[in-house]
């Protein structure tokens, strides 16, 4: 069955002094995939901004915003209408072990280079490597099983705790505190899988509430991972929930890590101090407006 979701995502920035020039890149328009299509999208910005659309190096949809009017508030509203198919539960034609998988190394390194190597938030530090060796795969172990196991293992070993880390924390911070939020769970899992030679990438998006699968905490903005599973291709997993990605995981963008897909990133002139950011998110199924969830916190743009 194909589900339809309506997402209204409003981000508001308040500045203590006026900002008089602002240039930003926004990644809020979900890109299409095999099972997901964006059938409607609207971006509203206040104060009005010049908006141009293009694709970045990872094929994500980027909107460049530029504002030249003095302002003390910036509101960015993204309104998306998404269709998501049910993900068929078909057994893959083959389920190779690591020994077989790693024979293909050269080819994989060629095609998935970006997703096999360290990146800004996922350095291959000694701490990460130590963790990896505690859980490293055996040669005869099927890759798909290992991936599922690691995803579940991260969920069990680390606590979901907002505030333990911040938006700029890399895997080392998560390892140090033993806790983090979905962004951190994703980075950590990506690191472990890359060390095993399995291409893994970061996915940003939304988790529409369904049954027991509610957004953890009050954030429906969500981060999970995609893994190149042999025989299946890029497959979504959610380390925060320890499960495979569902048809309620609505993906916006992919990249090596958070650094490649910040929802809004830019520079501005004027206000020199850190400002406050508020996010309002409404996700509804089949167009019915659902209960709004809000989350606010200090954040850099």
């Amino acid at each position, binding site marked *: 069955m194909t589900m339809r979701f309506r997402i209204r995502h409003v981000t508001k920035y308040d500045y203590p002094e006026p900002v008089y*020039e602002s*240039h*930003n*890149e926004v990644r809020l328009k979900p890109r299409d995939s095999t099972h997901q299509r964006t059938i409607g999208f609207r971006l509203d910005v206040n104060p009005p901004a*010049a908006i*141009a659309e*293009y*694709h*970045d*190096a990872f094929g994500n949809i980027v909107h*460049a915003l*530029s504002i*030249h009017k003095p302002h003390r508030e910036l509101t960015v509203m993204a309104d998306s209408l998404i269709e998501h198919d049910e993900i068929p539960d078909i057994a893959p034609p083959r389920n190779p072990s690591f020994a077989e998988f790693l024979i293909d190394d050269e080819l994989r*390194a*060629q095609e998935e*280079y*970006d997703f096999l*190597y360290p990146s800004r938030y996922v350095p291959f530090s000694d701490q990460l490597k130590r963790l990896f060796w505690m859980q490293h795969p055996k040669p005869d172990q099927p890759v798909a099983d290992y991936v599922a196991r690691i995803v579940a293992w991260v969920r069990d070993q680390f606590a979901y705790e907002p505030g333990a880390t911040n938006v700029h924390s890399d895997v080392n911070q998560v390892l140090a505190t033993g806790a983090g939020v979905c962004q951190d769970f994703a980075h950590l899992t990506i690191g472990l899988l890359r060390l095993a030679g399995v291409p893994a990438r970061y996915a940003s998006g939304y988790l529409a509430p369904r049954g027991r699968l509610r957004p953890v905490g009050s954030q429906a903005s969500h981060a999970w991972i995609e893994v190149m599973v042999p025989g299946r291709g890029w497959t979504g997993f959610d380390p925060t929930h320890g499960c495979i990605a569902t048809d309620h995981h609505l993906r916006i963008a992919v990249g090596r890590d958070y650094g490649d897909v910040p929802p809004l*990133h*830019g*520079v501005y002139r004027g206000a020199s101090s850190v400002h406050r950011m508020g996010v309002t998110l409404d996700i509804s199924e089949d167009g019915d407006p659902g209960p709004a969830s809000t989350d606010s916190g200090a954040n850099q743009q």
Partner: protein
Amino acid sequence: MATENARPTNSMPPVSAAYHPAEGAFDEMFRPDGSARPECSAVTEAVFGRGVDELSKIHASAERMLLRSGVTFNVYGESAGAERIFPFDVVPRAIDSPTWATLESGLIQRVKALNAFVADVYGEGNILKDGIVPRDLIMDSSQYRRGAIGIAPPHGVFITVAGIDLVRDAAGNFCVLEDNVRTPSGVSYVIENRLMLARLMPDLLRECRVKSVERYLADLLESLAELAPAGIDHPTIALLTPGPYNSAFFEHVFLSQRMGIELVEGRDLVCMDHKLWMKTVYGPKRVHVLYRRIDDDFLDPVVFRPDSMLGVSGLTAAMHAGAVTVANGIGTGVADDKAVFAYTPQMIRYYLGEQPIIPIVDTHLLREHDVRAKVLLNLDRYVVKPTGASGGYGVVIGPRASDEELAKLRTVIERDPKGFIAQPMITLSTHPTLVTQNGGAPKLAPRHVDLRPFVLMGAKPRVLAGGLTRVALREGTLIVNSSQGGGSKDTWVLEAPC
């Protein structure tokens, strides 16, 4: 060889007897037996015919002219903002017409291939998929820029201005030492040197029918204009400079003045509505083509370094929108990476289906185990250069390095083999240069030279006739950089044997 056009050399003035070509190097004017090379014998005779005293006087005039016209460069680290003239040697370096014709086609071939390479790397990546160039070489390069992906410049031109460094080995064959395709500099000296010799030795220039270099500025302007976004008939072009403290500022002033384009700093520019504008007293004026002389990292704080004061926020968005062309494009540094250099002959074959016309200096990739083993055995014979993946280690000239330096280098290489390549030390060709040693009488003595021709790529390729001949002014030294005691000579491409 144009022996039938050679004039008898027994009329050579006695001063040439005092000139001793250096051992083991190819002297550009004289054969080992002391006779003048026929290709440029007229120039040789005329120069030596003047006598050292007259040449010294001409040299002194040249220095005065240079100082007055302000042909200087800022030396980094000199706080009083001292400017030095780039030392100039009045003895011109001649290249005969057939040799130049070959070089010219080789240079065009090379820059076409490099351009295709950059377009491919930020596009389909075919050369990487086909395994010709290792992917990690590109992805690990400090010059690889994801920000370049998705930007389609007019005519597919990423490299508008290239400076290709050529050297002549002991057998007299030209080969490529390295490519410079980011923000190559030096062309202002070429034009100023010519202007000076035109004033000081006009008769000789006329006699030998030297190809003009004056067209270069018009050619550069045309090339830039040809790269304007589609639909713009009268593009506004500007030159982006880091400002007066940059060592090449003189050149930025020179080029913008002579081309009649605006010289701008980052703070003069603003992106509005995803178009590029400059801030004039009458309001914002649109810029269609930006000839930028700042590094990628400083170009756009939104995508690159956020603390950059030299660039313009939102420039890459304007490039994506097709509203402005930036020359040279973002990320061209992948093509002048020292390790990638080793693959340039394959690039020529891959993209053009041709054999390289100008060979490259043997370049050994130390990332390859067997190659590395062999080089490390004889490290004192090689020049070791850092690649784009290295952590900023400098160039080491094996034959000139101490045992301690070599030992340190060996350790560094072992630790990070991908960071280095090795080339055999080439004994650069020599050219008679006016020198005064230890306050003694001036004389003509051989000094090592190289050649940096400049290649332009607009809607079509154009090559500056000649280029910058850099000369190492200290005896025996091979280092020709301005910052390390080098100077320059006027380069004369002869129209026909004379």
